[in-house]
């Protein structure tokens, strides 16, 4: 099915030449594609899909994990009130010198309406997690159930190679735990206890952080990542990490 569509597309007969069913499938692909990569033509972007999601085989069938937790950040709404940072610190016992999530202040000196934008950053729970690849003792690993990059504190030797490997500065060494610490989408403190949202998503007064299961087609996360009209992007796509945290405006 997909192969036929790919062939059709590379022959560039145009979208109108596709059958109704093919079109729906195409749109499904197309939606995913333009949803996650800004700019470019539809045809050239198809191959980008597998760059963002876990494996090429599964991109059009389903997401690899169930639930597949993801987050969408509406950066135009963030006002750096930092309630998310405080909620996270309180829920997860973060010491004052560390953070699991942070707000960056992006400078736009030539901006017309505003010269500053706030970017919340946190662990992207990457599908190709560099930290999990480099950890010598498998202390950090990607959960095969929900896709969260977890931390097994007892195995951490404190070599800090995960900190160096992470393209997002998401990890820090927690002196009290004698291990590296990072965001785990509040799995142990909230999600596994029946809460639906992470602490930061719950605390945000401006609706910046949308958290949910991207494998669930009715979820808001799924809809927002796959809609066409607004650009959705990820941080540092060139790092090849295939993040599960998406950014958008609007």
């Amino acid at each position, binding site marked *: 099915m997909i192969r036929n569509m790919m062939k059709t597309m590379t022959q560039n007969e145009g979208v109108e030449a596709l059958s109704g069913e093919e079109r729906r499938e195409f749109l499904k692909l197309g939606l995913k594609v333009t949803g996650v990569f800004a700019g470019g033509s539809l045809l050239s972007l198809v191959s980008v899909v597998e760059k963002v999601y876990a494996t090429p085989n599964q991109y059009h069938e389903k997401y690899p994990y169930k639930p597949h937790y993801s987050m969408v950040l509406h950066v*135009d*709404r*963030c*006002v*750096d*009130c*930092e*309630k998310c940072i405080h909620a996270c610190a309180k829920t997860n016992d973060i010491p004052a*010198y*560390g*953070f699991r999530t*942070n*707000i*960056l*202040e992006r400078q736009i000196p030539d901006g017309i*309406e*505003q*010269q*500053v*934008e*706030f970017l919340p950053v946190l662990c992207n729970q990457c599908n190709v997690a560099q930290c999990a690849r480099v950890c010598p003792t498998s202390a950090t690993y990607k959960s095969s159930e929900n896709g969260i990059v977890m931390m097994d504190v007892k195995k951490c030797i404190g070599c800090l190679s995960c900190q160096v490997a992470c393209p997002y*500065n998401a990890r*820090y060494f927690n002196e009290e735990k004698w291990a590296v610490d990072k965001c785990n989408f509040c799995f142990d403190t909230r999600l596994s206890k029946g809460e639906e949202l992470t602490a930061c998503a719950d605390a945000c*007064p*401006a609706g910046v952080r949308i958290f949910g299961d991207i494998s669930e087609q009715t979820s808001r996360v799924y809809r927002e990542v796959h809609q066409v009209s607004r650009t959705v992007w990820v941080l540092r796509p060139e790092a090849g990490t295939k993040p599960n945290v998406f950014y958008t405006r609007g």
Partner: protein
Amino acid sequence: MKRLLMGLVLVGLAGVPVSADDSGGDIHYDKPVIGVLFSHESHVEDAGLDCESCHNDIFSMEAHAVQEEPDFNMLSLSEGRYCGACHDGEMAFASNTRCASCHEGAIGFRRALGMENTGASHY
């Protein structure tokens, strides 16, 4: 009178920052969220407003008094109260757009007050 005096003393004790210049200076709010900047300069000098435009019954002359109001929030602004009296999309940009132009955030707040840690890290 007593209450006004008390109020002034409390404001003074709170030590919240107001830079002293003719038009009233920058006011940095920290309630209900930290880091909202009101610049007298951009309203008085750039936009040409006079004192009466706002200091009639919308805002009192006391700096930071308004953030003690329990309904000083974005909903009120969208209903035309406080800043929303002008920032309705017609007289001035709508209060639910260009968020970071007023919301300097905790980072901007700390920077304005000369505090440490204006966005870079950490141990």
